[in-house]
């Protein structure tokens, strides 16, 4: 399976909350690859991809955070105009909905990485690989 584990956290919209999350991960030696914050008034949801999701989940859970794991796809994206279009258009034409997405650029690669949560994971995987788009595995994310 090429889906990777994303960690999601419920946080209150208050000063110092992000600091507490990142301190917890840093103390455990977990490295954040990509992160996004969705805010909704009093609270928000932090979503992130880390090098060691099992460990990341465990330390956050043990420290009393409300945390969940979600399966997402890490899609390699050409770092040129139209790179994003190629991916979302492929999905859109196959009627796969993107619930949310965020991207990051790695130091090594000339490619960017797009993290997406979709409503139909299996179908998304099929149509993307069918269109010659590469999906990163858990190991690859770990090694970045």
């Amino acid at each position: 399976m090429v889906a990777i584990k994303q960690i999601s956290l419920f946080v209150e919209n208050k000063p110092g909350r992000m600091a507490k999350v990142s301190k917890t991960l840093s103390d455990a030696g977990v490295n954040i690859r990509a992160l996004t914050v969705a805010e909704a008034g009093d609270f928000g949801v932090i979503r992130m991809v880390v090098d060691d999701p099992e460990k990341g989940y465990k330390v956050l859970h043990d420290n009393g955070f409300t945390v969940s794991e979600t399966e997402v796809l890490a899609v390699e994206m050409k770092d040129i105009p139209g790179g994003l279009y190629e991916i979302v258009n492929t999905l859109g034409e196959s009627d796969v909905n993107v619930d949310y997405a965020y991207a990051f650029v790695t130091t090594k690669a000339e490619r960017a990485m797009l993290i997406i949560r979709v409503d139909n994971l299996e179908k998304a995987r099929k149509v993307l690989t069918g269109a010659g788009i590469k999906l990163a595995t858990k190991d690859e994310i770990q090694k970045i």
Partner: protein
Amino acid sequence: MAMFDYWNPHIERMPAEDLCKLQEERLKSMVHYVYDHSPFYKERFKEAGVVPEDIKELSDLTKLPFTYKVDLRNTYPTGMFSLPRNRIVRYHVSSGTTGKPTVVGYTKDDIEMWSDSLARALTSIGLGRGDVIQVGYGYGLFTGGLGLHYGAEKIGATVLPTGTGNTERQIMLMQDLGSTAIACTPSYFLHIAEVAEKMGVSIRDDTSLRVGVFGAEPWSDETRRRIEEATGIKAYDIFGTSEMSGPLFTECQCQNGIHVWSDMFLIEVIDPKTGEQLPDGETGELVITTLNKWAIPLIRYRIGDLTVINSEPCECGRTHPRLMRILGRTDDMIVIRGINVFPSQVESVLMTIPEVGDHYQIIVDRKGPLDIMKVMVEVTETGFSDKIADLMSLSKMISKELKGVLNVVAGVELVEPGTIPRSEGKAVRVIDKRKV
């Protein structure tokens, strides 16, 4: 076949008419006693135009004037006592969150009556010799700790007097000394269960705990269900106030109402506005008259708790009346835009929603001329979706459920687990920021 144990089978199963006769005798002598011993009551009776001889049968009770908590405060410290201070073997003092504290005193016989009441109660929930009862109520001026302590010793159980606080040690001792029962506030027990889980201790599998005796704050059947499902223990409600002695009465194993011992207390439910007695089954304010208490007897004392009386004999064979539901004190009630709201109603809604944690807090404030109410709840991991839309609809759903029950619009704030303050004694459920 269900087997029920009794501490005093003769009294506990006495036919209702015999109990009434006993109450009548005791009421008559109690009225004489307070009139002769307490200047406060003599004065009060005079004002009401009543003398002890007017009380000939139980129904004459309504001729007697009410007494109130404010009377205890106005006569601070011992102005309502019927005996001189050298007859008192112990004092307890209530915290007095509003105004002066109230002082209660006990003779040796009063302590005996109190322990006897609890001995019957603890036996009725299946406790006895061989049980280890962890008393997690505060010891000291508060009645909870020492009250349970004496009752538990009386039935021959082993007492583990942990008092409140130092939760990790409570859990360690619970395991190492094999506590089979715990007595504390329901909110503190939820906290103990939470800390135990963090320590990797399962109350169900790693301890011998099988019974909880929870009180000193109103709690709902929904919380009972949560506690029982999460920890595998049986949770029983306990009731009593310091004016009555302290914690006195519990449910029996049928968990269907709190048995109030008629040979010790005469109870009525009244309409709080008119003072009229209400029939069984109707919700009203609880009024008690002590029948067997000598240092500070109370006549028609308005406890302030709202409840319903059921005088039908219980399945367990006990004939004494039951308090079917303690909705909370009239003091706990909050008025939002003219509508009465009890924290226990909010609790009963929240505890049916699995996405919501066991702790909550109600914040009341005023925006211009309008009261606003906000309920803070912790999001549990079970209910956490990483989609914002799901969280938004969760808070909307809670708000809608609350509106349905309370008839008041309440905002809902989702907060992180562990952020609502935990209490080792009575939980602070309401923060009222309105300036009167």
